[in-house]
């Protein structure tokens, strides 16, 4: 049984200004197996974030079902860790309290929270910054805190919504390597939304290529590339070409950067 099962999911938004319905997602079927690293790749407006938000439980499908680990998703919950586009940390809490925020809400003892936070702070490489506040750290460091916060809950799946989108090229590459390392050590199922082809091919075990208006899954491509991924290798480029062909065959107008974040 797959960890995440999305069957016949559609999402229709009402556009009150045009008085028309907009089909954001049209009959999506997708299964993510345990320990799979799936990248949802598509142009802006293809509904990839909407799909992720449905797995997270922030949004409800207009039709169809989302099942995580045998349970139909109806609301957000700590079995699904989310890493947001912006880190979304509590600015009034020091880093370690943010990492252990899940335990704070559960009423955990301070010493216990502190000790457990330390494990994940070390894991994402922020040792020494435990007592800093989010405003004192860089964007990349805050994003690491967001990842540590999601990991601490030991969730069934981790959902990431363009988490490195706002970072500079160098930091993004470092973060991608870190994420792969953590995923390999920690084991877990990850769904990662991106509009960068290179990013998807660097990270995933599978890439689901989406098309826009209406949002559909064009193809799910399993990636059989050795790690660390060589972004200049022959196999890498062949896959990239195939994805580009898929995207080009779509009608013009949808924007998609070939290299990350042009």
């Amino acid at each position, binding site marked *: 049984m797959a960890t995440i099962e999305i069957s016949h999911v559609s999402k229709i938004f009402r556009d009150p200004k045009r008085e028309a319905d907009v089909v954001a997602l049209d009959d999506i079927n997708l299964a993510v197996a345990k320990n799979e690293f799936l990248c949802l790749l598509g142009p802006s407006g293809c509904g990839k974030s909407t799909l992720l938000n449905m797995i*997270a*439980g*922030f949004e409800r499908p207009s039709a169809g079902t989302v099942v995580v680990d045998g349970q139909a998703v109806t*609301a*957000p*919950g*700590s079995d*699904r*860790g*989310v890493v*947001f586009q*912006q880190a*979304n*940390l*509590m*600015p*009034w*809490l020091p880093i370690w309290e943010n990492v252990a*925020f*899940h335990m*704070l*809400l*559960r009423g955990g003892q301070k010493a216990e929270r502190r000790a457990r936070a330390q494990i994940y702070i070390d894991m994402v490489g922020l040792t020494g910054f435990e007592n800093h*506040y989010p*405003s*004192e750290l860089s964007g990349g460091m805050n994003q690491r805190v967001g990842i540590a*916060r*999601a990991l601490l*809950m030991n969730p069934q799946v981790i959902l990431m919504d363009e988490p490195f989108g706002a970072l500079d090229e160098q930091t993004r590459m470092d973060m991608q390597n870190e994420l792969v390392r953590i995923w390999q050590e920690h084991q877990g199922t990850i769904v990662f939304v991106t509009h960068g082809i290179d990013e998807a091919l660097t990270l995933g075990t599978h890439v689901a290529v989406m098309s826009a208006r209406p949002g559909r899954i064009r193809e799910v491509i399993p990636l059989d590339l050795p790690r660390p991924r060589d972004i200049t290798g022959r196999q890498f480029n062949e896959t990239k070409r195939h994805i580009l062909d898929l995207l080009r065959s779509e009608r013009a107008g949808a924007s998609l950067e070939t290299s990350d974040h042009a």
Partner: protein
Amino acid sequence: MRYIRRLRTLDRAIVPVLILAGWEAFSRSGALPAALLPAPSTVVWAWADWVFGTDGNTQTYSGHWIFDTAASLSRVLAGFAIATALAVSIGAAIGWSRATEVIIEPTLQILRPIPPVSWIPLAIIWFGIANKPAIFLVFLGAFFPILLNTIHGVKNCDRNLIRAGAMVGGGNRELLRFIVLPAALPSIFAGLRIGIGSAWMLTVTAEMVAVKSGLGYVLWDSYYFLRYDLVLAAMASIGMLGFLSDLGIRAVMARVLHWQRNTTIQGGE
């Protein structure tokens, strides 16, 4: 650097010193009858007797300052505490729940434009001439600024932070307690600072009309006895206490909101 800083401290004193000196000179020149505008030195003299009982020139008030101050301060604190407790809880409920907003807010919006001072007659017939009408007025004056700022703070809480809280498994109660209220604190403190100002204003007003003790009462009583030096001393005392209460709130704020130090424009200093 140190030279510049010392110069700055001196700069700050220039205008007040000039005003005091000019006032002193003007009062002594005899352009106005001395009783109408007592010189600063006369005011200090009266004030000293009021506070320490130095020579008895303020007669029954000699040495009585601490009791007058305590009377006013206790009214301010009582009214302000009740206003804070009610305004923060009602404000949080209105800001958080649309249903509560629909039920409660219209009534509050109708009551709000009525100046607290205009409640004085009702306050007197309801509570008599004592502490209670004054506390009631202080409450009215402090309640609305705190309420409005709390509503504003709660409504402006970043939706993404609430999402993050729901993601780590928070229910409504946890989200309110651990995210919405902390996020609203800067706004709530802004309301408290406005509220404490209104609280002093209304205590003094109430003491002029509805109570027979406190700094406002001394001020009004001295006016009847033509002791304008004591009137000015009372005004200065009220100003000083208002300033100190605001300083107190700012001290608490600096402790509670220390995380804001690096996120505000002035934080760099």
